[in-house]
């Protein structure tokens, strides 16, 4: 029953989490805070806060609470035993969290995969690869469900049959961004949507840096896929470092502005993640499942002709336009006399065989080529 009053208290964004906690300690229960008079409240709150606190009582909050229950959203205040252990000791811990779906299991390792919204094809591939392989090994993948790396990593995890958790900067009943609707639905079923904001809260810009502390807080390890120098991703990294979490980084080319943030972190001494297997080993897990997949992939290359293999060796994960590919052919011993139509034919054959993706006049590898 006390939860209901804690819910009421959590709705006030103008009262800090620390203050709410202090009040809870002093009053002993959320209900007594709710019933406290102006005088008692004035010990902790200023007059503006008191005014909004008292005025809120008549604004139909109980109805909101009922709605929340009907939507299967759970509210877990910090003193609840279900409150995630990982969040209990972080700086500015949420007074309570809202969950649609469920929380990450305490005994399972968890990794936060975060990165740029407008990621490159390289980032796309890496995010999906790590997301799926880590999840397949039984790790909870945590992210911000944003466009780009966040969403892709979560999708990868769900596709691999694993668990993914999205921490939002809005109410858990708000799907933001709207384009991630299917991911939002799927995550609820197979993992959970988590937020410290009461249901119905709009995705305001100021919420996002704050929710990052929950992302890093819930994770044992934070993995940065792609980040520019000035980005929200690096804010999360700062939070993670303050919380004492390990940060791993996917290295990138020094000329890519999308990798500048990552490479900078390496310079500062963050861990380097070269492949999911290595990361799994560092987490003390056995990465034996993925080894078999590697062999299976190599078997597939046997069906390809020499020209096709050479063509694959010229492509990269990044999408390249046909003229750029033609340029590369000139320096290849086997393919230097290939005409444009021949090149197109070989590429289309590789698309059909499932090795290459084709977006417009751009071609790129679906998976890194090693032969």
């Amino acid at each position, binding site marked *: 029953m006390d939860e209901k009053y804690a819910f009421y208290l959590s709705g006030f964004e103008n009262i800090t989490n620390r203050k709410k906690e202090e009040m809870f300690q002093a009053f002993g229960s959320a209900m007594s805070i709710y019933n406290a008079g102006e005088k008692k409240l004035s010990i902790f709150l200023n007059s503006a806060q008191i005014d909004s606190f008292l005025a809120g009582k008549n604004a139909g909050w109980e109805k909101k609470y009922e709605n929340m229950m009907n939507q299967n959203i759970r509210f877990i205040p910090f003193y609840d035993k279900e409150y995630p252990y990982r969040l209990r000791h972080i700086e500015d811990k949420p007074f309570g969290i809202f969950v649609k779906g469920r929380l990450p299991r305490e005994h399972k390792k968890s990794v936060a995969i975060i990165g740029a*919204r*407008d*990621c*490159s*094809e390289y980032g796309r591939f890496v995010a999906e690869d790590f997301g799926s392989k880590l999840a397949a090994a039984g790790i909870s993948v945590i992210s911000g469900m944003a*466009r*780009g790396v966040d*969403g*892709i990593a979560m999708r990868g995890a769900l596709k691999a049959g694993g668990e993914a958790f999205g921490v939002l900067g809005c109410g858990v009943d708000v799907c933001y*961004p709207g*384009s991630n609707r299917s991911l939002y639905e799927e995550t609820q079923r197979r993992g959970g949507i988590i937020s410290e904001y009461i249901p119905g809260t709009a995705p305001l810009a100021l919420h996002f840096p704050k929710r990052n502390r929950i992302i890093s807080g819930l994770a044992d390890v934070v993995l940065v896929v792609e980040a520019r120098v000035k980005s929200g991703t690096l804010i999360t990294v700062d939070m993670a470092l303050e919380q004492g979490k390990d940060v791993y980084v996917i290295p990138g080319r020094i*000329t*890519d*502005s*999308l990798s500048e943030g990552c490479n900078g972190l390496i310079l500062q001494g963050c861990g380097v993640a070269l492949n999911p297997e290595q990361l799994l080993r560092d987490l003390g897990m056995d990465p034996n499942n993925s080894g078999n997949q590697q062999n299976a992939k190599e078997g597939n290359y046997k069906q390809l002709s020499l020209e096709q293999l050479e063509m694959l060796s010229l492509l990269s994960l990044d*999408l390249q*336009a*046909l*003229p*750029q590919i*033609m*340029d590369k052919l000139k320096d290849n011993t086997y393919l230097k006399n290939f005409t*444009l*139509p*021949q090149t*197109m*034919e070989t*590429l*289309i*054959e590789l*698309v*059909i065989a499932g090795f290459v993706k*084709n*977006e*417009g*006049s*751009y071609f790129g590898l679906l998976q890194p080529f090693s032969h």
Partner: protein
Amino acid sequence: MFSAVYSGGIFGMQAYKVRVEVDISPGLPNFEMVGSLGSEVKEAKERVVVALRNAGITIPVAKITLNLSPARIRKDGTGYDLPIATAILGCMHYFEPKDFEDTAFIGELSLNGEIRGVNGCLPMVLALKEEGIRTVCVPEDNARECLLVPDIKIVSFRYLQEFLNFLCDKAGGIQKYRSMGTDYHDLEPKSVTEDFSDVYGQEHMKRAVMVAAAGFHHILFSGPPGAGKTMIAKRIPGIMPSLQKEEQLEVLSIYSIAGKLDQQMFSVNRPFLSPHHTISPQALAGGGRIPKPGLLSLAHKGVLYLDEMPEFASNVLEVLRQPMEDKKVEIARSYGIYKYPADFMLVCSLNPCPCGYFPDRNRCRCTESEIKRYIGKLSGPILDRIDIGVEASNIHIRDLAKEGVCLSTAEMKSRVEKARKLQKMRYEKSHYSFNAGVHARDVEKYCILGKKEKDFLEKIYEKNKLSVRSYHKIIKLARTIADLEEEEEIRAVHLAEAVSYNNGKNYFLKEGQ
């Protein structure tokens, strides 16, 4: 006293013979004109009376009745001034009517007796020739276009006085003036200063352009600013085969009706029109109280280039849909439907995102939703009608430096012409002229695929989740590519190239993530 002479009228692209009948009979002085006349035609009486008086001829004070037959068709334009004056002079016995039974007159009069040019002279002369007219008197301004019509005598005048001498000079005058008409002459190719050899690199685009020109396929360029999209588009008319005689006359007729015939147009080169993106739907399709041909029709048999396509208003782009399907524009007015041909090759270009550098993420900072919004301005139905999509990538500095290896306009043109010749032979017994125009039901008849090719295409069909329309488009495109290679059979390599072009355009239809 009655007299009648012939003139020409025009409704849309349709020209017809008009009989101008005048009767001068005793009665209260009056000048009555009948025959569904537009306001310019009604004003003719003032111009004619004054011009004749200034030429020294006074019209008798009597009841004058004038009829333009056939009376059921609406008549517009100022070309009836000269025939009206002539018919009046006929009533006044200035000439022998039977000398001019196979002659027609076209021209506008000014008050001081000048004969001014009119719009649509060329199609009128063409129609009059079919109607059995042997000689046409035209304003000197229109002489050049009219001289293109074979087997008809053109006599041109600048002043009414000159014309009167021609009419009245009984002592062999007719013969003298008639011989003045220069004989019909052919158009020459205009020397083109823009050559494909100026375009370094971009061999991929050049090839695509060649395929497009060979099969009359619509094409879409995308790429960063400054990659040479406009440069290439401008050179496309240069590689298309010269206009055939009939095509020339059709194209020039449209320009004549639009009043846009200038020296530039007198060549066998195909038109190239590149409207600014602020153009209105009416300017594009044609319009006005008396509808004039729009840019779609002016680009007939040539190239319509829409640069920065997403910047065009969507209602303007939607106008393209019907003409791209029917190859003509129809504009309805209460007194009839104006039809103008519009069989153009659509070339359009766009940047892949608002800043232009996508997918180069080092330069492009556009968000996915910005890109979607930008590309989303193109409607699916228009993209669906485009066959080829190619990417203009930034040119490598290496390509700028190398010389002598890139294709020139002359080379490309000769290959396109060969491909067109093959198509002409293939479609001899049908109403088609190009691969692009073949209807889905005839694709299997004209574009035969072997077993291996069919399997190949089937795999692509499943892999790319193609629509049936795209499936046929790819086959037709592959047919053009095979024609360009002068090969009898469509091979897998041709299909692969066609698929690649088709995908190039689908890029823009793709949903993000």
